[in-house]
Every structure is written in C-alpha cells, then in structure tokens.
C-alpha cells in the first residue's frame, strides 16, 4: 500500500477555521474537508494491515489534520493552536464521528497529554520546542509512568534519575507505553530523591528523547494480539537538565495534570464516536428488522446503554464548560466521573454487541488498525474496552480517590 493513494489530488483548499465565527459555516467547512480527505476505503485498507502501513497511514492522517489546523485546534493560539471553544470542539468531534474518520491514535499523547503537561508546568523553551515539534514535524510522544512493580501504586516507582553536572542519568524500566516503538519523545517520571519522607515527594518529571543512547524499546503483545504497548529499558540514559519539567521533586503533581487530559478531552472524541455507533446500530437493526428488537431484555439493555451514553455526553459538555472557565481544570472531579462512566459503559456496550454476535462473533477476524472501539469485530472491540477500565488509573484506584477526595470518606 502506498500512503500517497489516500486521496486523489484535490485542487480545493480547505480552511474551516477561517469561518469559525459562523458555526454553521464552520461545520460545513469541516464536513467538506472530511468528505474530500478521508479515504472511503480506509477501513478496508487498515484491516489486517502491516504495522508499517498503519504507522504510515497515521502519519499521513495527522499531517492532513495539521494542514487545516484541525490537529491542534484546542491548543491556545499563543502555542500554535486556534483557541477554539467547546462549541467548535463539539462540531469537530461530531463531524469526525460522522465521517468515520481515522483516530489519530499514535498522536494521542502528543495532542493531549503533552500540552496538558507543558501548558501549566513547562518552560517557555520547552513549549516552543516540543509543541512546535508536534505541529510542524508530527513528533510522536509516549508516556513513561508505569513500571513492572508500580502500576496502581504509581508513586512507588523506582526508575532513578541522578543529577551529574548538566545532565540527569536515568536507570530503570518503564512499561505499558503505547506507541513507544514509534515515539520520538517520552513523558517520563523518575525518582530524584529516594530519601524523601513521602514517596510522592521524590519524583521528577522529564522529557526523554527516545533516540538517546541507552534507550531500548521492546513491544508487548496484548490480549487483542496487537503490540501497541512497549516496555522501555533505560540504561544510563542522559537527559539534559533543560528537559526537567517543573521543579525537581515536583513531578507527582504535574503528573496529575497529564492524567486529567486522559480523563477528559480524549473521551470527548470517543464519546461522539460511541454516540454515532449506537445510532448506526439502531438504524441498522431497524433496516434489517433485527431479532434483538423483539427481545425485551436486549432492547432494554440497548436503551439503558443509550441513556447512559446521552448522560456521558452531557457530563463531557459540563466539563468543557468548566475548562472554558478554568483552562487548567485543576481540582475538578468531573474528568474522573467521566472516565469511569465511559469505560464501564464501553465495556457494557461492547459486551452487548458481543452477545448479539453469537457464535459468529467468536470467529477470528482481521483487526481494523486504528478503528477504535467500534469496528464491528465484536470480540476485538470487547477486548479493547479493557484499555479504558485499566489505563490512566485503574477504575478501582479512581474510585478510591473519588471516595476520599470528592466524597470526603476517611483514608
């Protein structure tokens, strides 16, 4: 497959952001651009595609989004974004879902976690260098938080960072780093003070260049059969002191900003896709007069899920309004409510579709790479739902945190 075949050359130039003062025109602009640029056959081409083809496709799609400013429209204008608000973001996500456009999966950390970290805590030099790298060169970022011995108990992490002159020397091991094999940089947590009275107090936050000597990446095959995750081995890796984010030993608090991105904005897009899927599933059932529409239990399970999906979208809109008021969304608990609600609903709905799939749903089918959670390969979609109940803080950890911080229950 060659990436260049993705679209026929077009003479039209698209600039939906130019008409962002008129919401209808903006929507029409986004829609026209998507209709012109999203290859009609991309699902078919990514079904069972090779890893190299998938990576090339991701890079191509990210570049296309960037050309019209729709890769980073949610970033502030000062840092190369378009400063758009919630109403525009809703339109973009709705239209992306409507067009069944690809997920820029490989760039999730670049688009959300990196800015959520640097906006509030990075230096100007860091923002200038790394945000531009994402926008201008399509740099891929991964996250180096978890370790083999530090999952839910993240603060117990043992990867060491020792200051030696102008560098920190890193030794340790990271795990569950999505797209680590293709990443240019990594958001890294490492221990700078092993003697701190609280384990959270001895952690610092770094930018790790994945091409630096001493970095070894090894893919991990997941239950789905894909190898999106990686282990990262760090053997005397040197990080310049300029790549320390924030103060030394202040990394724990910064990491919370990173994770809040995961619990909010990313789910926004996924929830729009989920809404689209539920509508499409119902329309398909109506068109084919599906058996499950006559099955009381199944029909009611669907509508319960539908109602929960509507509630999810409302919660996300409430969050977007909070963010417009307070861009750093420091103390809000809404992202955590959203993450747990979304992930449990995703599990429930993918399992619902799996049940409807019957025995045929158990047949092994090629995976649509980058197809997200609603590829119609029901067993794969179901397995992939664990990505959201486990990652970004397992739901059990988040529930304990909610109970203590939001509900005030004692430790």
């Amino acid at each position: 497959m060659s990436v260049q075949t993705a679209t026929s050359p077009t003479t039209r130039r698209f600039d939906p952001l130019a008409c962002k003062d008129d919401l209808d025109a903006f929507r029409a602009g986004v829609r026209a651009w998507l209709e012109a640029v999203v290859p009609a056959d991309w699902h078919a081409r990514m079904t069972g595609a090779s890893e190299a083809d998938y990576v090339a496709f991701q890079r191509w799609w990210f570049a296309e989004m960037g050309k019209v400013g729709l890769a980073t429209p949610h970033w502030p204008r000062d840092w190369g974004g378009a400063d758009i608000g919630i109403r525009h973001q809703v339109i973009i996500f709705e239209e992306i879902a409507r067009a069944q456009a690809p997920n820029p999966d490989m760039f999730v950390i670049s688009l959300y976690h990196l800015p959520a970290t640097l906006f509030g805590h990075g230096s100007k030099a860091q923002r200038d260098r790394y945000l531009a790298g994402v926008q201008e060169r399509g740099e891929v970022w991964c996250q180096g938080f978890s370790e083999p011995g530090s999952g839910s108990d993240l603060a117990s992490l043992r990867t060491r960072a020792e200051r030696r002159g102008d560098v920190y020397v890193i030794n340790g091991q990271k795990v569950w780093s999505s797209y680590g094999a293709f990443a240019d940089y990594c958001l890294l947590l490492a221990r700078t003070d092993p003697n701190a009275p609280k384990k959270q107090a001895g952690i610092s936050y770094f930018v790790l260049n994945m091409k630096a000597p001493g970095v070894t990446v090894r893919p991990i095959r997941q239950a789905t059969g894909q190898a999106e995750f990686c282990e990262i081995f760090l053997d005397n890796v040197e990080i310049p002191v300029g790549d320390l984010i924030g103060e030394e030993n202040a990394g724990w608090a910064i990491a919370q900003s990173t994770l809040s991105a995961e619990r909010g904005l990313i789910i926004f897009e996924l929830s729009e896709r989920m809404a689209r899927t539920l509508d499409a599933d119902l329309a398909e059932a109506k068109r084919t007069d599906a058996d499950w529409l006559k099955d009381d239990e199944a029909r009611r399970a669907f509508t319960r899920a539908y109602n929960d999906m509507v509630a999810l979208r409302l919660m996300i809109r409430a969050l977007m309004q909070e963010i417009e008021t307070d861009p750093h969304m420091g103390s809000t608990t809404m992202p955590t409510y959203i993450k747990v609600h979304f992930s449990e609903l995703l599990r429930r709905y993918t399992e619902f579709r799996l049940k409807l799939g019957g025995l045929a749903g158990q047949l092994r089918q090629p995976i649509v790479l980058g197809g997200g959670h609603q590829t119609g390969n029901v067993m794969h979609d179901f397995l992939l739902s664990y990505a959201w109940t486990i990652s970004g803080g397992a739901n059990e950890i988040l529930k304990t945190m909610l109970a203590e911080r939001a509900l005030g229950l004692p430790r």
Partner: protein
Amino acid sequence: MSDANSGDGMDLEALRDGVRTVLSEQASHEKVAAFTNAEGVRDRPLWSQAAELGWLALSAPEDHGGLGLGPSELAVVYEELGRAVAPLPVLGTLLVVEALARGGDAAQQAAWTPRLAAGELAGTVSMLTPGVLAPTLTLSAGADGGVVLDGVAETLLDGAAADVLLLLAREGEALRWVLVEPAIDGVTVEKAATVDRTRHLGVARFAGLALPAGRVLAADAGEIADALLHHAALALASDARGGANAVFEITLDYLKTREQFGKPIGSFQALKHRCADHKIALVASGALVAEAVARMASRDPAAGRYALAAKALATEVYARVAQDAVQLHGGIGYTWEHPCHLYLKRAKLNEQLFGGPAAYLDRVTDLLLAAA
C-alpha cells in the same frame, strides 16, 4: 409541564434555597415520620404553607392566578420535595393545572385553575403509563347535554386527598378527559395505602354518575395525555434526583462517623467503591434530568423522549442508592426511627408510578427507532 411564559424565569437558586429552608423546618424527617405514623392523607399545615408560598401557583397561567412559570421552576420544587420526602400532593394538583391550561376552555380554567393555584383544591389525574392508553372508565351521553361516568379508577395518586379528579374515560371510540369534584358529585375516594406512607393511591367508583357538559375537556385527549405523562416523568425524575442525593448524603455522613474495628467504616475500601459508583450514577442521571428539564423549557421537539429517559434512569438510580443506603447503615438503617426506609419506599414507588422502568425504556426505544 406547561411552558407558557417561562421566558422570564425566576432565580432558580433563590427558589431552591427558599423551598429547602421551609421544608427543612416544616417537613423535617421528624415531621414526615409523624405524618406517616398518623396515617393521614394530607398534611394540612404543610399544604397551607406550600400554598402560601406560591409553590402551587408556579405553573398556572398568569390570568388564572398563577405565575406562568415552567419546567425549570417546577423541577426545582419537585427535587426539593423529593429531598425532604415531603408528603404533599403537589404532582397531582399541578397535573390538573397543566391539563386545564392545555385543554380547558376559559370557563373551565376560571372555575378550577385559580383555586388549584391557591391551594384551595388539591387534584389528581388518572394513572397514565407510557403504553397504550386504556382507560377503565366509560363516558356516555346524559340528560341536558351532560355526560354519565361509569367504572372504577383504581390508582389515583394521593386520590383521597384530592378535591378534583381529572379522569381519562372512553366515550365510544374517542378518549375524553373529565373532571369530577368528589365533594360536589357525591363521590368518595377510598384510600389504598401504599408502603410509602408519604403518599397513597385512591380508588374511585362510578356507577351512572351524571355530570354537566362543562366537566369534559374539549381538547385532544391524547395530546393532553402525552403532556401529562411528560410532566409526571420529569416530576418523578426530579423527585428521584432530590431523594437520591439526600439519602446518599445521609449515608456518607454516617460512614464518616460510625466506627467499627477502631476506625470509621467509611475508611473501608469495599464501602468506598460502592459510594463512588453511586456518586457517578448520581452525576450521570442528574445530567440527564437537567437536560430533559432544559429541553422541556425550550420546547425542544425531543423533550418528551428526554423526559421519559430521565424518568427511567433517575428512578432506577434512586432505587439503587436507597437500597444500598439501608445496607450501608446496617441495623440502624433498617429501623423505623431512621429515615432510610422513607427514602427506600419512596424510591420504589417512584419507579412504578406512571409506569415502571420497562415501560419507559420501551417507549424511549420506540421513539429512537422512529427517529433512526
């Protein structure tokens, strides 16, 4: 809910504070318990208070003694009544007001609406459900252009407290809404006690009851029924939202103070996780209820579907939270003295009033399919 003139709404938070303050004194758990122990049908002092404060006048048209407000204001009152598990027949009364505003002629509105809005009369309506309208009453032609009512209406919400019954009856192939005033018409509404003692059901029997023509609403009965069902759905969803949050707060307070094994039981993770689940469900269902209210207030074409969905979700969440509240309290939560059972019983009744969860889900599915 009627949305006439709701453009200039009142300050909802001020309304909420006002209602909550009054109810915290006049419908404290002690007073509600005393009312339920006395097996009454209407808490007269509380009703008078509600009338004086204008809660019953909120939605009535301004030219008939009301404030002409809409779903946003009503939802606040219903939610606060739910928080307090208040024993007030507000819903039935405001449903009659809504039906008159939508389907009553000038004479009918003048005859009943001002007195309902002033709390001189309490009302109730036939127990609609989201399914096919199947009235148990029949209407036939009577003398002097009047009508004759026959049959039994079994499940009138707070019916024994009602001075005005708005009943759905079949007249040949057509459906009609007809008004009965028990005191004037010589009808007795028997109380059918529910386990939730803050409310009850009423049974009214009619055998050839002659009524003047002015008792029949001329407007399309199906349209009125839809409006009443949506109003009832939003009211019960709001009651559920208020009640669920209240019983959850009571439970959290208990978990923070009750000590076993030398520490507060709220420090145990098994209980924390259940509370977190409840909180998330409350946030999610609360968002859906608020959206349904907002859509009803703005006359959104999909508002009805949102109201029905909100009723299904919010009443189920209330039932789940109230059920677990008793369990999380342990023995004390199972006692008559503790308010937990008031919430549990009201939650369970809410799930069934004006149709159960399955009926609501099925109607929502039908509406989604029609739009798919």
